[in-house]
C-alpha cells in the first residue's frame, strides 16, 4: 500500500495494530549479534518447524518472530513470550519443544530457563517478567525503544509501534524552522561522540545558500566493544530513516546516504530492506506521503577503516575517494559531501528524532542533565557480569550503570577501571564511579562519552597493558596522513611496549608525556587529537602502576609477562588441575603432593592461575 496522504497513515496503523492485537501470544526470538552467535536463528527455525506441524490455539506462526538485540547479551540466546514478558535465557534449540509444550500449550513456566538473580546470601531467585530484572528496571529506552520488540523486516511492526507518525506530524503541522527549533530546544547533542548540538548543526545547514544539501547518517561504528548503532541498524532501521527524512525536510535536502561499516553485513541487509519498503509505501522518494517533500536514501558501505567514522573522511569515502580526513577550518556542514552543505548525524541521534517530535522538546529536555539532555545507549562489555546493550538517562552515575545494571565485575572480582569513549577514550578509576555520565563531566575527568562503548576492567587488568592495547588499535587505524598521528602514536605505542617489558626509564615517561601533548594539539583530525588519551588517562589515575613497571620492574596486576613469575604455594592440594591445564608441560607433581612450576619452561600464560580453585598459584 502506498501512503499518498497523511490521513491514510492513521487508518493503516489501526489495521497493523489490529493484526498484532489479534495475536494472543507472541514469541520474540532475539537475533541480535550476541544471540545469533549463540545459534538463535536455529531456535527460530525450530519454533517454526514444530509449530507448522502442530496447531496451538492463541499462537500463530506469524506471532513467532525474530527481533533485533534485546540487550541482555550475557544471558543469550533470549526468547521472550508476550504479553507476560516471560524471559527465557540461554535457550538452546533443544529447549524449543519444551517451551512450546509447557509455556505455549499449558501456560506454565520452564523454570530452568528463567533468569536467576543472586540474593545477598549467595542463593538466588528466579524472575519471570524481564521488566522486573535489575538489568532492565533502571533503563529508559528512547533510541532503542523498538529494538528487540519488533521484527525489523516488517514495516507493519514499525507502523503499529507508532512509526512514521512523527514524520506525519512534521509534514502536516510544522514548518522546517519549527522542526529545527524543536530539536534545538530539546538540547539533543550528537550521539556519535562529539556531542555537538544537533539543532545548531541543522540550522547552520539550512541557512546556507545552495542548490543541493545532503543528509547523511554515520553508521561507521568502529570502537572496539561498541555495538549500539549496529543494534539499531539491525533491529529498528525505520527509526533511522524517519529521523533522516524529518531532517531532510528541516534542512531542505533531496538526497542522503547511510554510511555502514563493512563489518556489519546484516545492518546493510536490514537497512536496504527498510529503505525498499519505505520507498514502496511512500515514505521515501518523490512526494513523500503525498506532500511536496522528495528525499531518497542510499547505502554507502565502508571499506573497514576506523578513520572513516570521522566526518570529513566519511564524506570522502562516500564520494569514492580515499577515506582520509581533511582540516575542518571550513566545517562539513558548510562544505561537506561533494563540497555541498551536509548534515551528518549518528545512527542513535537520528533514531531519537521521531520521539522528540512526537513527545516534544520539553519532555526530552526534562530527561537527563541540563547540558546533556535525554538518554544515551551504552554497550557494556569487558569484565562485567551483565554484558549487553543499555540505555539510561544522561546524568546517571557510572556506578549505577556498572553495578546496578551491569551487576558489577565478573566472578565478583574487584572493580578497577572503566574505559569509556572507544579506543581514544580514557580509563576512569573506582573513585570516579560516582560521576554523572554526560558529555562534559567525562571529558573533564580525562575520558570522553564517545559513541557509548564501556569496557569494565577488574583487578587482574594491567593499566599499562590496557594503554598499550588501545594505542595499538589506534596505530593500526591511523590513516597515516599527518605526522603527529602516524609517527607520534607509533612511537608512543613503542615506548608503552618498552614499559610493559620493564625496559623503560623515567626519561622515557617524560618523553611520552611531551609527545602526547604535541600529538593532541598538532594532529589533523579527532583520531590523532584524542589518540594519546589511553596513555594520558591511565597515567593520570594509575601513575603508581607505571612507576612499578619502570622503577621496580614489576607488574602489580600480574599481566605483563616479562615482569612476572608464577609459583605454587603451600595451599596446593595436589589436585593435578594445573598440570592438565599447562599447555607447555611446565608443571610437575603427583596427586596430593605439592606441584612445582619449572620456570625455564613456563610461558606465563596464566592457565594454572585460572584453573586453581585453592588460590595456590601466586603471581609476582
Amino acid at each position, binding site marked *: 500500500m502506498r501512503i499518498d496522504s497523511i490521513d491514510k497513515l492513521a487508518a493503516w496503523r489501526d489495521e497493523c495494530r489490529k493484526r498484532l492485537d489479534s495475536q494472543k501470544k507472541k514469541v520474540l526470538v532475539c537475533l541480535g549479534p550476541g544471540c545469533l552467535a549463540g545459534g538463535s536463528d536455529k531456535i527460530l527455525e525450530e519454533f517454526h518447524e514444530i509449530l507448522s506441524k502442530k496447531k496451538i490455539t492463541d499462537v500463530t506462526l506469524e506471532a513467532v518472530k525474530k527481533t533485533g538485540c534485546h540487550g541482555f547479551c550475557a544471558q543469550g540466546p533470549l526468547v521472550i513470550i508476550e504479553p507476560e514478558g516471560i524471559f527465557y535465557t540461554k535457550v538452546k534449540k533443544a529447549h524449543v519443544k519444551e517451551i512450546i509444550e509447557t509455556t505455549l500449550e499449558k501456560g506454565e513456566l520452564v523454570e530452568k530457563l528463567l533468569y536467576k538473580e543472586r540474593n545477598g546470601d549467595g542463593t538466588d531467585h528466579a524472575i519471570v517478567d524481564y521488566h522486573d530484572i535489575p538489568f532492565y528496571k533502571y533503563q529508559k529506552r528512547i533510541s532503542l525503544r523498538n529494538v528487540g520488540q519488533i521484527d525489523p523486516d516488517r514495516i507493519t511492526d514499525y507502523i503499529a509501534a507508532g512509526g512514521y507518525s512523527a514524520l506525519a506530524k512534521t509534514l502536516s503541522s510544522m514548518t522546517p524552522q519549527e522542526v529545527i527549533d524543536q530539536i534545538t530546544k530539546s538540547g539533543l547533542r550528537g550521539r556519535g561522540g562529539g556531542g555537538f548540538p544537533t539543532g545548531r548543526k541543522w540550522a547552520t545547514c539550512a541557512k546556507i545558500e545552495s542548490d543541493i544539501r545532503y543528509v547523511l547518517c554515520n553508521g561507521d561504528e568502529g570502537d572496539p566493544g561498541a555495538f549500539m548503532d549496529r543494534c539499531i541498524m539491525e533491529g529498528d532501521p525505520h527509526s533511522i530513516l524517519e529521523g533522516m527524512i524529518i531532517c531532510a525536510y528541516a534542512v531542505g535536502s533531496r538526497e542522503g546516504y547511510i554510511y555502514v561499516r563493512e563489518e556489519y553485513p546484516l545492518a546493510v541487509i536490514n537497512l536496504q530492506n527498510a529503505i525498499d519498503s519505505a520507498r514502496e509505501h511512500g515514505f521515501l522518494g518523490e512526494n513523500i506521503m503525498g506532500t511536496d517533500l522528495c528525499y531518497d536514501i542510499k547505502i554507502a558501505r565502508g571499506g573497514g577503516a576506523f578513520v572513516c567514522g570521522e566526518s570529513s573522511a566519511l564524506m570522502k569515502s562516500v564520494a569514492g575517494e580515499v577515506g582520509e580526513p581533511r582540516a575542518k577550518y571550513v566545517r562539513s556542514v558548510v562544505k561537506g559531501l561533494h563540497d555541498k552543505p551536509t548534515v551528518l548525524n549518528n545512527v542513535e541521534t537520528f533514531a531519537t528524532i521521531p520521539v522528540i517530535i512526537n513527545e516534544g522538546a520539553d519532555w526530552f529536555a526534562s530527561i537527563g542533565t541540563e547540558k546533556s539532555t535525554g538518554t544515551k545507549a551504552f554497550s557494556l562489555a569487558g569484565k562485567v557480569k551483565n554484558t549487553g546493550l543499555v540505555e539510561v538517562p544522561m546524568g546517571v552515575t557510572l556506578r549505577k550503570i556498572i553495578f546496578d545494571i551491569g551487576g558489577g565485575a565478573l566472578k565478583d572480582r574487584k572493580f578497577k577501571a572503566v574505559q569509556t569513549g572507544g579506543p581514544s577514550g580514557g580509563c576512569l578509576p573506582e573513585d570516579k564511579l560516582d560521576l554523572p555520565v554526560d558529555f562534559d563531566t567525562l571529558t573533564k575527568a580525562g575520558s570522553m562519552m564517545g559513541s557509548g562503548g564501556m569496557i569494565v576492567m577488574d583487578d587482574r587488568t594491567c593499566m599499562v597493558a590496557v594503554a598499550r592495547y588501545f594505542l595499538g588499535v589506534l*596505530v593500526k587505524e591511523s590513516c597515516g596522513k599527518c605526522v603527529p598521528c602516524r609517527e607520534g602514536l607509533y612511537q608512543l605505542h613503542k615506548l608503552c611496549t618498552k614499559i610493559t617489558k620493564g625496559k623503560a626509564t623515567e626519561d622515557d615517561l617524560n*618523553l611520552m608525556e611531551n609527545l602526547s601533548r604535541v600529538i593532541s594539539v598538532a594532529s589533523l583530525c579527532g583520531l590523532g587529537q584524542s589518540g594519546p588519551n589511553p596513555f594520558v588517562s591511565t597515567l593520570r589515575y594509575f601513575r603508581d602502576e607505571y612507576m612499578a613497571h619502570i622503577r621496580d620492574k614489576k607488574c602489580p596486576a600480574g599481566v605483563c609477562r616479562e615482569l612476572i613469575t608464577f609459583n605454587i604455594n603451600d595451599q596446593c592440594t595436589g589436585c593435578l588441575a594445573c598440570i592438565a591445564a599447562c599447555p607447555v608441560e611446565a608443571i610437575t607433581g603427583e596427586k596430593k603432593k605439592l606441584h612445582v612450576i619449572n620456570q625455564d619452561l613456563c610461558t606465563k600464560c596464566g592457565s594454572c592461575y585460572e584453573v586453581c580453585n585453592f588460590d595456590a598459584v601466586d603471581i609476582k
Partner: protein
Amino acid sequence: MVNITINGKVVRATEGEMLLDVIRREGINIPTLCQHDALEPAGNCRLCMVEITRTEWDGWKKYVTSCLYPVEEGLIVSTHTSELHEIRKTILDLLLANSPHSDVLQKMAEEYGLHKTSYEPNLEGDNCIMCYACTRICEVLGKSAISPVMRGHEKVIAPPFGEEPPDCIGCLACAHICPTNVITWTDENLTRTIWKKKFELIACEKCGKATISRDFAEYLIEKRGLPKEYFNTCDDCKRVELAQKMGALVDKAKEVAL
C-alpha cells in the same frame, strides 16, 4: 581586504587567502615539507602550525596549520612561540626517527637544536615523509598513477597493486617534487625506469642525446597543443638551431644595412 595581526604587526590580506602565504609575504620564515606552490595545500607535515586567537575569544587560542587556514578579519597570529617551537621540534624528531639518514631532515632538525632523534631510529627508513607531494602533482597532471596505499605507519606511496603503474608517463614530476629525494629513477641509453616501469626516451634527431619519454611527449603534445615535431630535437639542439637562425637574421640585417 582584511586586517590581521601577525606577531604584533597589523597586516593587510585578501580574505580567504591562506595564512601561510600572508606570513611568508611578511618575510617570516616558517618551515614546511608538504607545501609546494604548484599544489593545493594538504596539511600533512604540520610544521606550518601557528597559534591564532581573536580579541573576542577572551584569551582562548588554538593551533592551526597556516597552509590551510583562510584568513579572516581580526585574526591575531603568533608564529614563533615556545609551544610552536616544541611542536615543530617534536614533528622533526618523529620524522627523523623514521628517516634518520635524510640530510634534508637532519638539516632542519639541527635548526631546532636536535642533533639526533629522541626515539629509536628506524635504520631501514626510506626517507619518505608521506607528504603526498608526489601523488598530488601526479593528480594535477591528471594521471594519478601513484597513490598512498595502506594505513598508518604501514602507509606507502605505490602504484596500484605494487605493479608497473599503467597511467605513469615517466615525466619524473614525482621525483623532482619530492622534498626528501626518495623517488629514484634511472636513465640508461634510451630507456628510463621509474616505478619499475620502463619508458622509451626520444633520441634527439640531431645529436642523438636522450630527451623526454615518448609517453610524456605525447601527453604534452595532446594537452598543451604543442606541434608534433616539437620533441624531435633536444633543448640544446633547439637552442643551437635558434642561435643559428638568429645569426642568419643578424647577418641578413647587416647585409641590408650595408
